[in-house]
């Protein structure tokens, strides 16, 4: 299972456990706002070598229909995937 953004975000102290222990992999905030450029995958050119997936520090690239896709909630736009792609299937586009 890919970790995902929870719909329920604890907002009051009642909802947050008293101890420091909490469910592992509990995500309540996105990282999308950090990004100034976003990677766009051209599925025509993608040969599914998974070099982008392997080298992504955030692990936001995943397999989809035999190609790859990006989880834009957590991508920080570092551009490593574009550098790693040998078939030129990823381009970086400015965020508007």
């Amino acid at each position, binding site marked *: 299972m890919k*970790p995902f953004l929870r719909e329920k975000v604890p907002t009051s102290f009642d909802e*947050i456990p008293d101890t420091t222990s*909490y469910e*592992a992999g509990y*995500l309540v905030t996105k990282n999308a706002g950090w990004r100034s450029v976003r990677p766009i995958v051209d599925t025509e050119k993608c040969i599914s070598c998974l070099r982008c997936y392997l080298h992504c520090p955030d*692990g936001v690239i995943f397999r989809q229909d035999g190609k790859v896709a990006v989880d834009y909630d957590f991508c920080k736009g*570092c*551009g*490593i995937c574009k550098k790693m792609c040998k078939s030129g299937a990823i381009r970086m586009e400015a965020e508007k």
Partner: protein
Amino acid sequence: MAINAQTLNETEFFYGHKACAGCGGSLAVRIALKVLGENTFAVLPAGCMSAVGFNFPQLCFSNNAIISTFAGTASMLTGIEAGLRAQGVTDFHAVGFAGDGGTADIGLQALSGAIDRNDDILYICYDNEAYMNTGIQKSSLTPFGARTTTTPAGKNIRGNLRPKKNLFEIVAAHGIPYAATASVGYLNDFMRKIEKAKQIKGTKYIHILAPCPTGWGIQTDETIDVAKEVVDCGLWYLAEYENGSFILNHDPKEFTSIEKYLRKQSRFKHLTDKDIQTIQNSRDAKWEYIHRNFK
């Protein structure tokens, strides 16, 4: 079959973290956990990975993970391993991820103790060559000439005066069952080493070089290229220590330019040609030693 991008576990265990874009250390943690699998208990001392992974209630590890004291990574691993064993759990890995400061300076005593007891743990040092989390202070793994906030580059003193501590061989000198060096620029090699460490009983140590775009002064997309280049230019090496002997995994026929590697990082911008010659001489001496003593 060797593990690669196609056969790697698709589950993400380190996700949604707040590391800087292009962070090499978080890539090392992510890949290591994917190779180790679900039944892994991770220990993270104070350092980048605990600061970016546990922003309560945003908890980025999908496996068991805990923050330890700065000096206590290895001792906490010892406790976790013993505790699980006492509970009758057999199928697990206790792994620690400490930075270069948490390993070579602050946590060295605990690490040395754990190796001495030969506890069944895996200790991974992600080496970004300074205390990056607190704002780039020199550690004993900061290389010669690097500018940090505690070794500034001025007119008379140009950055760090001391060479990088040879931690891999210090760990190996304990007679550890398995130790290895790696780089995030060579992930297949790193994954093979984790896979190997998984099978070995006793203390395992893997030292992975992980560039930090913020501290090294490189673009966020250059992390992997720089991590590859540092191996290709001979300032880092991929090796293993096993059964009492050193094995060199990657022997570059010809080194790429050290100057090119250094000049692209702003932490080395101030170096003179003479400084670069000093670095080149120490590299040549190191490789002469490696060729003499490594298989």
